[in-house]
C-alpha cells in the first residue's frame, strides 16, 4: 500500500467522526499552520525595536562628535591664524595708532580720517575707537559664520537623514513584530481549537514527521551527491585505463 496514503489515513483516523471532507479541511488547515513561531521570535523582534533607537543615539553622537572636531579645527584657524593676520592689516588701514595718539579721528560727516576738532578730541576719539572695534568684530564674526555655518547646516542635514533612516527601519520592524505576534495568536487559537477537538498533539506529530522527512530527504540527497562523485571518479579512472 502507498505509504503516503497509510500516513494520511493514520492521521485522519485520529480525527473525531467528521465527514471525510471536513477531515481533509482540518488536516490541510493544520498542516498549513504547522510552521511554529516561538515566543522568542516575537521577543527578539521586539528587542531589536528597543535597541535600534539606542543604536541611533550612538550613531547620532558619533556624527555630532565628528562635526565638533571639525568645528574645533575651524575655530582654531579663525582664532590662531585668520584673526592674527587680519588685525594688523586693520590696525594699519584703520589708522588705529594715529587714532590712539590723538593725531586723527574718523569723521562721520566726510567719511574720512581728519584732525580732531579742538574741544571735542575725547568724544571723537571714543566714537572712532567704537566704530573701529565694531568693524573688527563684524569682520571676525563674518568669517566665523563663513567657516562654521556650512558645518552646522551639514550636521543638521546628516543627522536628519540618519534619524529618518532609523525611524523607517524601526517602524518597519514594528510591523514585523506585530506580524510575528499575529502568527503566535493564530497558533494559540489553532491549539485551542485542536484541543477542543481532542487532537491537541496532532499538529506536533505532523510537524515532527515533516521535519524528520525533510531531514531524511536531505540525507538522501547527500548520499546521491556522494554517489555521483564516486561515479565520476570511476569514469575518470576507467578513461585513464583505456
Amino acid at each position, binding site marked *: 500500500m502507498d505509504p503516503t496514503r497509510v500516513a494520511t489515513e493514520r492521521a485522519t483516523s485520529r480525527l473525531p467522526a467528521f465527514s471525510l471532507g471536513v477531515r481533509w479541511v482540518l488536516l490541510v488547515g493544520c498542516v498549513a499552520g504547522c510552521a511554529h513561531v516561538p515566543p522568542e521570535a516575537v521577543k527578539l523582534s521586539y528587542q531589536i525595536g528597543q535597541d535600534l533607537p539606542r543604536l541611533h543615539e550612538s550613531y547620532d553622537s558619533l556624527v555630532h562628535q565628528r562635526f565638533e572636531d*571639525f568645528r574645533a579645527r575651524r575655530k582654531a584657524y579663525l582664532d590662531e591664524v585668520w584673526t592674527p*593676520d587680519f588685525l594688523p*592689516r*586693520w590696525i594699519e*588701514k584703520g589708522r588705529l595708532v594715529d587714532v590712539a595718539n590723538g593725531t586723527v579721528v574718523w569723521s562721520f*560727516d566726510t567719511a574720512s580720517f581728519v584732525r580732531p576738532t579742538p574741544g571735542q578730541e575725547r568724544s571723537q576719539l571714543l566714537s572712532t575707537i567704537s566704530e573701529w572695534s565694531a568693524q573688527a568684530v563684524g569682520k571676525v564674526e563674518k568669517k566665523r559664520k563663513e567657516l562654521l555655518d556650512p558645518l552646522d547646516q551639514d550636521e543638521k542635514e*546628516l543627522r536628519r537623514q540618519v534619524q529618518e533612516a532609523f525611524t523607517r527601519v524601526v517602524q518597519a520592524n514594528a*510591523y514585523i513584530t506585530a506580524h510575528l505576534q499575529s502568527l503566535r*495568536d493564530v497558533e494559540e487559537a489553532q491549539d485551542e481549537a485542536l484541543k477542543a477537538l481532542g487532537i491537541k498533539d496532532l499538529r506536533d506529530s505532523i510537524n515532527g514527521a515533516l521535519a524528520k522527512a525533510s531531514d531524511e530527504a536531505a540525507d538522501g540527497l547527500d548520499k546521491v551527491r556522494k554517489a555521483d562523485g564516486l561515479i565520476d571518479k570511476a569514469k575518470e579512472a576507467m578513461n585513464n585505463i583505456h
Partner: protein
Amino acid sequence: MGRQTRGMDDLADKAEQETNEALRDTELKLLLETRIDWNALRPQIADQETYDTLIAAVQSATAQNESIAQLKARIVALGSAGIAVAGKVVQLIGRV
C-alpha cells in the same frame, strides 16, 4: 548730515580681502580636511516607497491573522445566533 560709515567699511573690507588672499591656500586645505564625505556617512537604505509597499503587504497579512485569531472570541460575542452561523459554515465545508 547722517553718520557715514561707508568709508570705514571699505577700509575694513580691504583688510579682510588681503587676509583672505594671503591665507587662501591654508584655508582651502582646512576646508577640504574638515568636510564630511556624504557618500560614506549618508545612510543608503531603501527608499520610503519600497518600505511602504512591503509594510502594506505585511500589514494586510497581519490583519488577516488577527482576524483568524479572534474568530472564536467573535463567534462567542455574537451569542447563540453566531454559534448557529458557525455551525452552518462547518456543515457547508463538510459538503465540499
